[in-house]
């Protein structure tokens, strides 16, 4: 088995790339169905092989694979290489990425059937799959950064897929630039690592990490800072961009301008979790800096709480889910901060399935409603779309952490882990994630009730034409609904308390909250029982469901009254705490002002106006003076010669006398 693995890994990466190239470059020749067949086959092959690799590494205890593919370049005696590191951590990501991507490829046939950019779309999402695989399979920071930027590029291309739509192309540019701010920090982190370790290879870095535990670096003044803290915070800034943590989250809600399949694939299930994956991968580094961990903890907590609140006031069905994604990413980040990397990864996996499911469900509603996304114009859809309705119900239950669903296990594990954490900021984080449970339940059920239940706010004409979504749309929904329900029960024991990740994730003993929890863990039923015995979380969840039921089923007029009563709060939430305005005014306009100032004043006035053309002017003035000297009259010259001789003579005599 092990001998074939290298070929298998290569095929996993290259199959989607080949699909993308064929669909992208030969799209006209192979046609629409050709494009979806090659890409679906490519990603399908990749997905099945990933599962084989998963079995090999997770079930059969296969050895970690860490090999170089080729040398990108060598300079100054240092080699920069491209290579794969495959262990239980990367293989988990590979399965999630390829499987969700595969389902979304199939779903796209239905969603994009009437779009003129059909082939281009398939090419992009396959290219995305390739980039994401390069990112997760990398064994070094260089390739990680390659993948990191490449997924950013594809995300940019896909958000702006409908390039005529002004909001879409604005959102795509915004997404790329905000991500670049994160990448700026990320690159500095990589540079710091390179300075400290003289290599970008993970294994070489991790084996020497202890040497640098107490290294310092002077950045501001004379105060030495811990090198590890600087590295980890820089790297985490990268994660904040990609995984949309406050304040670099602003691009994610806007990214909903893109087609729904990519919202599910890129902006919910996979790309946005790259930051979570990266921090887990770098756990040996992060474990050395309590400061960085606290920073992560607090950032995640703020994101989890504040972004969930914004989900309460949105009426666009996709935006509600987008804010929910932000909030759930906050949960994962909090888990990272508490050193519960396994819990973060666990939630990443379950979230990938149920959030992709919810997005695809929303997408199904959107296409059936002819691209209507406003929930105020929906309602009662369960009657016409039973499959979508049931699948979305399962997704919602998983999202709110209904006991037994996948989301229940992963979310409860995070909450428990934070309860055990002793880092600075863990109290605030615990408060945030617990309150977050109520908010999650409230906005999720609000979405579910407003869309599928309650009063039909759809006009009769449209209602007549409503029907269940086509086969290619519902099948992926059903396939994703299954893991959303049952995956948690299967994974919790090995992933959190077993030896699932092995050496891939390193946790310092003093931080090991999961080991702490492991002592009290007695099987799934025990975990369920524990949740019932400490009912705070379950009560909050039930309260959320109940309030949503009251407000959107029982007394649908109530929310409007609440809004008129608390208009101020509502406005703050609608304006997203004013962060978008601030960014637009301060950074976007500010940069343009600085540019104008430097250009008009610096380049045009000072350099060109004063120096360059000023020099030219002085040359003209000077030469017009000098011109008088060349009058052409002999007596002028003779006079000048005599004067000159006299002056020379005077100087000469003066010299002798002294």
């Amino acid at each position, binding site marked *: 088995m092990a001998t074939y693995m290298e070929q298998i890994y290569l095929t996993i990466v290259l199959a989607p790339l080949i699909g993308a190239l064929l669909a992208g470059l030969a799209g006209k020749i192979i046609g629409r169905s050709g494009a979806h067949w090659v890409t679906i086959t490519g990603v399908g092959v990749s997905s099945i092989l990933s599962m084989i690799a998963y079995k090999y590494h997770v079930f059969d205890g296969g050895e970690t694979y860490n090999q170089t593919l080729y040398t990108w370049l060598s300079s100054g005696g240092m080699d920069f290489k491209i290579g794969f590191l495959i262990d239980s951590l990367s293989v988990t990501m590979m399965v999630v990425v390829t499987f969700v991507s595969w389902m979304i490829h199939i779903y796209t046939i239905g969603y994009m059937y009437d779009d003129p950019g059909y082939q281009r779309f398939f090419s992009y999402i396959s290219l995305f799959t390739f980039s994401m695989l390069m990112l997760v399979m990398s064994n070094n920071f260089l390739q990680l950064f390659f993948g990191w930027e*490449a997924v950013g590029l594809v995300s940019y291309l896909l958000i702006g897929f409908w390039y005529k739509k*002004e909001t879409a192309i604005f959102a795509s540019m915004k997404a790329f630039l905000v991500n*670049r701010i994160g990448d700026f920090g990320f690159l*500095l982190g990589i540079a*710091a690592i390179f300075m400290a370790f003289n290599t970008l290879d993970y294994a070489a870095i991790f084996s020497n990490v202890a040497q640098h535990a107490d290294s310092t670096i002077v950045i501001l003044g004379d105060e030495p800072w811990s090198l590890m803290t600087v590295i980890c915070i820089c790297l985490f800034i990268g994660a904040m961009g990609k995984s949309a943590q406050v304040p670099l989250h602003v691009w994610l809600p806007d990214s909903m301008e893109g087609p729904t399949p990519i919202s599910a694939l890129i902006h919910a299930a996979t790309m946005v979790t790259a930051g979570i994956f990266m921090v887990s991968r770098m756990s040996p580094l992060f474990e050395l800096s309590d400061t960085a961990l606290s920073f992560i903890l607090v950032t995640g907590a703020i994101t989890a709480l504040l972004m969930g609140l914004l989900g309460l006031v949105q009426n666009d069905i996709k935006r509600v889910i987008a804010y929910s994604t932000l909030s759930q990413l906050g949960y994962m980040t909090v888990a990272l901060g508490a050193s519960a990397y396994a819990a973060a990864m666990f939630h990443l996996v379950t979230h990938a399935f149920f959030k992709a499911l919810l997005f695809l469900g929303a997408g199904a509603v959107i296409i059936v409603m002819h691209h209507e996304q406003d929930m105020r114009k929906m309602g009662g859809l369960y009657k016409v779309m039973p499959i979508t309705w049931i699948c979305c119900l399962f997704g919602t239950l998983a999202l709110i952490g209904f006991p037994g669903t996948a989301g229940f296990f992963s979310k409860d594990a995070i909450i428990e882990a934070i309860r055990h954490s002793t880092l600075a900021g863990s109290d605030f984080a615990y408060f945030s994630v617990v309150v977050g449970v109520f908010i999650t339940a409230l906005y999720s059920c609000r979405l579910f009730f407003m869309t599928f239940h309650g009063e039909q706010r759809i006009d009769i004409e449209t209602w007549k034409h409503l029907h269940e979504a086509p086969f290619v749309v519902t099948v992926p929904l059903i396939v994703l609904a299954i893991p959303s329900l049952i995956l948690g029960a299967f994974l919790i024991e090995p992933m959190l308390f077993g030896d699932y990740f092995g050496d891939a994730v390193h946790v310092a003993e003093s931080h090991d909250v999961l080991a702490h929890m492991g002592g009290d863990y007695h099987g799934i039923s025990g975990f369920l029982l524990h949740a019932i015995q400490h009912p705070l979380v379950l009560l909050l969840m039930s309260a959320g469901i109940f309030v949503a039921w009251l407000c959107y089923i029982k007394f649908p007029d109530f929310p409007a009254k609440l809004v008129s009563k608390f208009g101020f709060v509502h406005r703050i939430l609608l304006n997203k705490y004013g962060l978008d305005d601030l960014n637009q005014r301060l950074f976007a306009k500010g940069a343009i002002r600085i*540019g104008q100032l430097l250009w008009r004043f610096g380049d045009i006035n000072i350099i060109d106006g004063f120096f360059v053309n000023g020099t030219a002017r002085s040359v003209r003035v000077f030469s017009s003076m000098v011109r008088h000297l060349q009058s052409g009259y002999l007596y002028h010259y003779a006079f000048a010669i005599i004067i000159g001789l006299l002056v020379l003579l005077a100087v000469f005599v003066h010299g002798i006398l002294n």
Partner: protein
Amino acid sequence: MTFNSLPLLSLLIWTPIIGGIWVLIAGDRQEQTVKYFAFAVAILTFIFSVILYCWFDPDYAGMQFVEEADWITTFNIKYHLGVDGIALPLILLSSFTTILVILAAWEVIEKHISYYMCAFLVLTGLMNGVFAALDAILFYVYWEAMLIPMFLIIGIWGGPNRVYATVKFFLYTFLGSVFMLVAFLYLYSAADSFNIQALHDVPLSLTAQKYIFIAFFLAFAVKIPMWPVHTWLPDAHVEAPTGGSVILAALMLKMGGYGFLRFSLPITPDASLFFNEAMIVLSLIAIVYIGFIALVQEDMKKLIAYSSISHMGFVTLGFFIPFSIMAASGSPASAIMGMEGAMMQMISHGFISAAMFLCVGVMYDRMHSRMIKDYGGVVNSMPYFAAFMMLFAMANAGLPGTSGFVGEFLVILSSFEANFWIAFTAALTLILGAAYTLWLYKRVVFGEITQDAVAKLQDINGRETFILFLLAIVVLIFGIWPAPLFDIMHVTVEQLVQHVSQTKIL
């Protein structure tokens, strides 16, 4: 060895020059013949450069393909040619780019096509001469002679404000080079030779080195260009025809960088050490200050010109960061990395800026406007063009996987070793570069069509596709696998770093 028998460097210099003169003689009447002949000469020159690459021995530290003959014996001036690992990539770049500009002119230049082709061919020969010359006076002759065809290119085929631009271009660069000549004359008095390698070894006092450094600085900083002597470039670019802009950006600027490597650093190492902080500061100003200026440009060519200056900031940063690194850690490894990164940045910028100017050229040929506001929604009528331009825009923004990333990455990595804040400031280009490039792309290419003229645009034809395709291939290859380019530079750059780390003060 066979290459000793073939004067490859002379062929690289004189084939295009003689071909150019023949084109001129043939005149405008035989338009088709002239075009095909010029194209054939360009291809032939490129083949010579490829042979040069194949026969080049990357493990040999000295000059290769050396040709030496007496020229002006009274002053010991020689016709002395040779290449090493930093000249070779630039010769390859210049021969490659010539093919592109000749193809780019094919149906576009209507006025005096034979003069145009002649100017470019002669220019190529002279540029190869600059990169191959091992005699300071020979270098100077090629260097100054190059101004003439460029002057004519902008002056004859340029835009409406071409006279101001040409005069500014000529005076700026000429003024700088005069100081270089003075420095050469002084060095002759010290070394009794114009042989560049002899000049590398001649001992000099720190004061003398400082003056020489400043004289060289005036020549090379104007050419590359560094802030604050950069203002000729946007004007020259805006007025130049597409081919002129391509050569200007892809090659003329690189002469400044090459000059720093060939003259400033090895001849005045102690002065370079003395001035290195100032040079780093100027480089960082170029990266950030110019990045902001590029953001607000309304003229596409100006925007790309400013972005060129910003990218050249990485070149000078990479050239002078080794001094700071060796002062901070004493390790030559990162110093070499910074310098090779800067070389890579020069080569890569040659491809990317050429591509960006060609893209603007493609649009300008159809619309006769360079203003961003006259466009919008180009993707609707020119989808293939839009795809190419997307790739080049991303390369311009330094996306990994394109050649634009490699140099910036290495320079940032190595400058972190010297100082956190240098790396921090340089890395701002990640944000600024993306901002000005993507905003340009968004305004020009994306969106609904707002102008009737844009709706009528024809997508790129076969010739244009071929040019952009060639560039796309090299941009991607050097992004995915830059190793071959580095392999030919290693020995030379190592030797250079070794050389500059030793004092020349007696």
